[in-house]
């Protein structure tokens, strides 16, 4: 920590938050809001004379309220920066000055009530998101009585309690009556692995953290009775199992079963009812202190950051990496990386590993001093652009800017464009060319495919990353499906323009399938949401025109779903067989009717 404070290459902004991000890989412009500290950061020596005279006493956040601090304070002894700060909302006031005792006490004259919040602009080439996590708030699980019973603590509170630098200098005491407990219970999976409360996922660290805490107790207070209530103990890391065995050897009792109910007794101890799932008996345990092993929740500010940086979150609220196995620290947006619990619950070792990995990935991108952009990007045909702003609306990367008011043509930032082609598919004026997947190229493929015997063929549009890869996987697995299937590859299903589908039907295709990644798996953040909207829109139009809408199908198929791909091709063939030659003739006639064009645009 102190290395960071001292490092000449690191500029540290505390009390600061990112409020805006502009630009793209290699050239981000980041706006920070730095809140006023009211103490000159570089001049303060941390002597603490100011805090001694401050009359305002408040609960200390660092110790979770188990001790107190003043309105002017240092967050904790080893804090970096070491400078004190004023909580201006707690300070008795300085305008007019009603107290200002701290100002008088400070010999170096570091305290300045006129400081104000600052806006800072930083230019950077890469961004590492390491926003961490937040502990689960167990008040949601009222059955454990947290905050109702004073001797029910969270694992983090317990952590501070037994910390040598903590409020009790490491003495194991109950916060209410300062009595050393004779028995301590731990409840596992509080806010984890539950579909009712907290998260469904495993929070990764709580088992080992509890095992560690039991060892801390047993090493210092061998006579304390320790019980752990659990679902199963996940001690999967290097050296973990050994620690677990040591804990059992020292006499910690591990009881398989989570308490259903906790009651407070007269002496403020707790009576815990647990069904021991090994013996199927409900047993009662009296414990002097109960520790809730709280799970890890995503940071609330993730949503704001996700919007600013164009990132994705998993349904749990953690950041989604570009690939769960092969690109575990990259964001789908180039130049952005994840480290630590921002991406999912992690212990210290994993967080450090990922921090190093993220820096390695960032260096890999930056070391050349310039970046090469992928040429498969979209381009605006300025003469046709009506500045409607649709392209900018659909772009998942905010790579297109349009001044709708001034009616200037759209501009594509080719460094930020990832090449999904959604803009070209959505442009109502054909004013966007998607390089390497142009309208002409794709329609050329459709026409070539349907030149002979179109009625016998199945036209499939497949995105490169999921569905086309799924079809490849069917091949690798030698899964057989009808031979009349023909695939046209696009980078993203978002590229599949309405007119490609109409072209297919007009050239006599009996059925058309649009396939892409599942929601959340889209390699272009959420471009496939537009695919879905578009397909639904075309199906509605088909219905209006008197064409059976089910002849156009939409199916999400992942790269691993070869079997699903093969099965669905069979279904497409069954569907194709329901389309008669007469039906195709009618469709072609309807679509060739020149009046359709008008209806097509609404």
């Amino acid at each position, binding site marked *: 920590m102190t290395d*960071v404070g001292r490092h000449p290459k690191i500029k540290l902004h505390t009390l600061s938050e990112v409020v805006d991000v502009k630009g793209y890989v290699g050239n981000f412009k980041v706006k920070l809001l730095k809140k006023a500290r009211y103490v000159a950061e570089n001049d303060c020596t941390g002597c603490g004379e100011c805090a001694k005279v401050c009359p305002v006493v408040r609960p200390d956040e*660092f110790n979770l309220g188990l001790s107190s601090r003043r309105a002017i304070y240092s967050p904790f002894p080893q804090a970096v920066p070491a400078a004190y700060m004023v909580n201006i909302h707690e300070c008795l006031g300085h305008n007019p000055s009603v107290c200002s005792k701290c100002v008088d006490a400070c010999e170096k004259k570091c305290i300045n009530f006129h400081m104000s919040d600052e806006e800072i602009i930083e230019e950077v080439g890469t961004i*590492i998101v390491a926003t*961490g996590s937040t502990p689960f708030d167990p008040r949601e699980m009222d059955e454990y009585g947290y905050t109702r019973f004073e001797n029910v603590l969270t694992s983090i509170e317990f952590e501070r309690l037994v910390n040598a630098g903590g409020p009790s200098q490491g003495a194991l005491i109950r916060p209410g009556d300062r009595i050393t407990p004779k028995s301590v219970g731990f409840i596992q999976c509080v806010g984890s692995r539950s579909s009712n409360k907290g998260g469904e996922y495993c929070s990764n660290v709580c088992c080992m953290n509890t095992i560690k805490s039991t060892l801390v107790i047993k090493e210092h207070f061998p006579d304390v009775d320790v019980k752990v209530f659990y679902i199963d103990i996940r001690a999967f890391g290097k050296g973990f199992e050994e620690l677990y065995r040591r804990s059992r050897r020292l006499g910690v009792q591990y009881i398989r079963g989570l308490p259903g109910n906790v009651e407070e007794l007269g002496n403020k101890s707790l009576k815990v009812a647990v069904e021991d799932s090994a013996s199927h008996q409900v047993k009662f345990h009296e414990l002097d202190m109960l520790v809730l092993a709280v799970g890890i929740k995503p940071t609330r500010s993730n949503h704001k950051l996700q919007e600013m940086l164009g990132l994705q979150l998993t349904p749990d609220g953690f950041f989604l990496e570009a690939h769960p196995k092969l690109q575990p620290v990259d964001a789908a947006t180039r130049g952005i990386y994840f480290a630590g619990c921002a991406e999912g619950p992690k212990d210290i070792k994993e967080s450090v590993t990922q921090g190093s990995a993220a820096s390695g990935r960032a260096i890999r991108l930056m070391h050349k001093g310039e970046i090469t952009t992928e040429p498969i990007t979209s381009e605006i045909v300025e003469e046709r652009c009506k500045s409607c702003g649709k392209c900018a609306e659909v772009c998942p990367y905010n790579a297109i800017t349009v001044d709708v008011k001034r009616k200037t043509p759209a501009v594509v930032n080719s460094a930020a464009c990832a090449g999904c082609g959604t803009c070209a598919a959505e442009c109502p004026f054909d004013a966007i060319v998607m390089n390497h997947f142009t309208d002409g190229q794709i329609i050329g493929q459709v026409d070539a495919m349907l030149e002979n015997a179109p009625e016998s063929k199945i036209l499939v549009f497949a995105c490169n990353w999921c569905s086309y890869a799924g079809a490849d996987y069917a091949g690798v697995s030698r899964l057989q499906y009808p031979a009349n299937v023909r695939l046209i590859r696009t980078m993203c299903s978002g590229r599949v323009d309405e007119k490609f589908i109409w072209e297919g039907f007009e050239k006599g295709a009996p059925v058309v399938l649009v396939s892409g990644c599942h929601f959340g798996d889209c390699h272009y953040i959420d471009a496939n949401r537009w695919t879905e909207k578009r397909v639904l829109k075309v199906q509605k139009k088909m219905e209006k025109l008197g064409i059976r809408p089910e002849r156009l199908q939409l199916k999400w198929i992942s790269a691993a779903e070869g079997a699903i791909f093969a099965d669905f091709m069979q279904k497409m063939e069954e569907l194709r067989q329901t389309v008669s030659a007469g039906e195709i003739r009618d469709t072609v006639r309807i679509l060739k009717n020149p009046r359709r064009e008008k209806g097509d645009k609404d």
Partner: protein
Amino acid sequence: MEAINTLSTPVDGKKTPKIGVYVCHCGLNIAQTVDCAKVARNALELSGVLMAKDIGYACSEPGQNEIRQDIAENGLDRVVIASCSPRLHEPTFRKMMEAAGLNPFMLEMANLREQCSWVHMHEPDAATDKAFDLVKMAVSRAQRLAPLFPETMPLTKRTLVIGGGVAGIQAALDLADSGYEVVLVEKSPSIGGIMARLDKTFPTMDCSI
């Protein structure tokens, strides 16, 4: 097996494309189901195709050399390779194009293995028809390909690390020690995050700060 097409016609009013089509046997992977020679013969009739042939292993060193030689001798300006999935060998053949002095984006692949011979193993005729269709689609696309060039852009050699917990600290130090400037942003008054609250940590039971 090999022939030169003299009937190619211009597309989009531009110069007549000179496409070379290579139908790969992939040993027997493709050839045992698809009649590769027939596909190549038929491909020669397609507009814009200057030459078409079947080839044992297009991706192999001799295979690539043969294609490169054809490009040089016949002035081919675009190539269709009908072989395995582009997800496997598109990068290989793009490099080959570059080595032959052509723009790598003037290449198109038809997927005759993963999406044809391997999935229609018991229907050689239908698979051969499909293979021809896939080649035809690829040729149609190849006619309309345009050269593309990557751009290079300047870059700021500086990293923003959002969050000063243990992960952010590690990332910032690694970058800074490698000579890169780092801006570390932390919303609370001190860095350290959750780890600063811990004393002993598993599995080593030592101090965390």
